[in-house]
């Protein structure tokens, strides 16, 4: 049977080839799924890989979806690199959206255009606050951050549902659980006419550069990564694991909160129970497929965004459900994790079965 043999050092070729191989495997399984469903597989692939990029409008929509994914993933990559398992970004995103929405609701027709700044800051603050709960419980009580951050997602969903169904409910909203539509001045400025792309894209790209500098050019970024790779060495070098925990969680929470603010004051324009769209979870895949590297994540965010748009297309044109998106996302992460074995190991054929 096959045996894995550890490589002396990680293979550079496979570091780049593995995401591509994983994508290929995902496409193959997806094709088989379409055939099993009796749908034309070429049509299906077209929905996912051609429709999202075939004209300027679609490309804009691709950017609209990729922006929150990228911003959240950048924060998560920081966490994962420091071995902090924040998987509650969805909750931090929701609370960020709530804080931002709260500020946006204060605006009236005479409010200055500059209100956009406090809205974005409120989003960041909300996300940080929610993530700090996880950091606090981990730091003070050693509570597992995976479970705490995840439970807080369910709590955040209920907080949102309470606000839009209670105190913040739109009195003119026919009893729908939603706030009133935010004033036009609160809208995140758009980059071009005729497209929904906002300055969020620029913020995302600035964050890419920011994360790159932080990770590879600063002492704090270095300390954080050493703590993730070799906790003992980090302790010896005097790097504080507590500091790394708080830094990683606050930054990633802030990023998720910012993404939430950009969404509610951007494409959505009001708070509803449909604000949580799973971006917080999809961003985990973006982070992994992008190798936790700032630039790699730009590509994976675009890819994941194609899956979102493809899923919507498959729903409207092929009569399939939107949840196809989740199937493809999960498959991609699965295949990637399997293919990544090749980065650190060589496959060797061995006659006798080793246990």
């Amino acid at each position, binding site marked *: 049977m096959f045996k894995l043999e550890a490589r002396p050092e990680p293979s550079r070729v496979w570091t780049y080839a593995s995401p591509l191989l994983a994508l290929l495997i995902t496409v193959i399984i997806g094709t088989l799924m379409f055939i099993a469903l009796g749908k034309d597989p070429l049509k299906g692939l077209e929905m996912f890989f051609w429709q999202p990029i075939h004209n300027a409008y679609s490309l804009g929509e691709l950017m609209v979806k990729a922006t929150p994914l990228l911003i959240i993933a950048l924060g998560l990559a920081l966490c994962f690199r420091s071995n902090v398992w924040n998987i509650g970004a969805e909750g931090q995103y929701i609370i960020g959206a709530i804080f931002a929405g709260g500020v946006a609701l204060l605006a009236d027709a005479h409010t200055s255009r500059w209100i956009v700044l406090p809205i974005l800051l409120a989003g960041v603050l909300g996300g940080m606050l929610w993530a700090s709960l996880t950091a606090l419980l981990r730091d003070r009580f050693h509570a597992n951050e995976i*479970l705490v951050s995840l439970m807080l997602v369910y709590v955040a969903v209920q907080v949102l549902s309470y606000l839009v169904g209670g105190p913040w409910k739109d009195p003119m909203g026919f009893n729908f659980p939603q706030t009133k539509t935010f004033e036009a001045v609160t809208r995140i400025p758009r980059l071009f006419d005729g497209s929904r792309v906002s300055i969020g894209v620029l913020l995302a790209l600035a964050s890419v550069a920011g994360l790159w500098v932080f990770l590879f050019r600063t002492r704090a970024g270095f300390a954080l990564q050493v703590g993730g790779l070799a906790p003992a060495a980090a302790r010896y070098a005097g790097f504080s694991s507590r500091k790394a925990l708080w830094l990683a969680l606050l930054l990633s929470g802030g990023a998720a909160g910012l993404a939430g603010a950009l969404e509610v004051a951007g494409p959505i324009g009001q708070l509803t129970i449909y604000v949580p769209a799973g971006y917080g979870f999809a961003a985990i895949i973006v982070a992994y497929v992008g190798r936790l590297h700032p630039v790699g994540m730009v590509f994976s965010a675009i890819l994941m965004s194609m899956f979102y748009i493809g899923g919507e297309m498959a729903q409207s044109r092929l009569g399939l459900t939107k949840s196809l998106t989740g199937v493809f996302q999960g498959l991609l992460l699965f295949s990637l994790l399997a293919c990544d074995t090749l980065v650190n190991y060589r496959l060797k054929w061995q006659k006798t079965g080793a246990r």
Partner: protein
Amino acid sequence: MESYALLLAATLNAGTVLAIASLGLLINEKVGIVNLGAEGMMLCAAIAGFATVVTTGNDWLGFAAGMAIGAVLAGIFGLLVIWLNTNQYATGLALTLFGTGFSAFVGTSFVQAKIPERASYAIPGLADIPWIGPALFRHHPLVYITVLLALALIWFMYRTRSGLVMRSVGESPESAHALGYPVRRIRLLAVVAGGALCGLAGAYLSVIYTPLWVEGMVAGKGWIALALTTFATWRPARVLLGAYLFGGVTMLQFHLQSIGVDVPSQFLSMLPYVATIVVLALISRNPQWIRVNMPTSLGKPFYPGA
């Protein structure tokens, strides 16, 4: 008074879902492997079980389908984690993300479906005892089987040779390997068994507990089950206790609502999740205590000869 009997009955019912899943995850973690895919496996099993019962009308076939899908998914997870050395946390998450999407995708045509009416499960004689009858003796057989399952697991883990080997794999895979035990095969077996139980829990949820199919209906119960293993410090009896306790918290929200406590329903719905967080913090407060009980190799990969 009668309403409290019903509350207790509902608690047992809700606790059973958590108990089955959590016992499965306990087996999993006893050999050193954390499977964060519980939520995804339960969702896939929930739709598989529900669809089977809607089509065949047989509950037990539904449970079998749920267990089968749970075992298959766990098997894939196990092969990746145990043979390909992938990161346990990331792989488990992938399983949950995939399971959430896949179950919703497959389940669309069953959203409106109904499970055929069935007779109640009263135990003749016992069920008619006032108060105690409705509280304890009108349950689906699986509620009682779950208790037996916990007892069987205790016996297996602490009274049999295989149980000892299983625990030693979790405590020190290196020594178990050196003694000639097939560490990876044992780990895979435990992972598959754990997946089958998570599957059973998912099927119980959609076939007996709720009986219906809604997208994402597991709603964090897989994660709560994971937290319960820590809460129980990896002891089957405490898992059972914890599961019923949490079942009680889940039911408390409906009870508080029905007796007219004036709190917005969303705050009551938060209760199980907040309770999980609070309990996790309280239990984990003393790291020494957790470390003494935790399987030593938990979350750490083992690859013989690497």
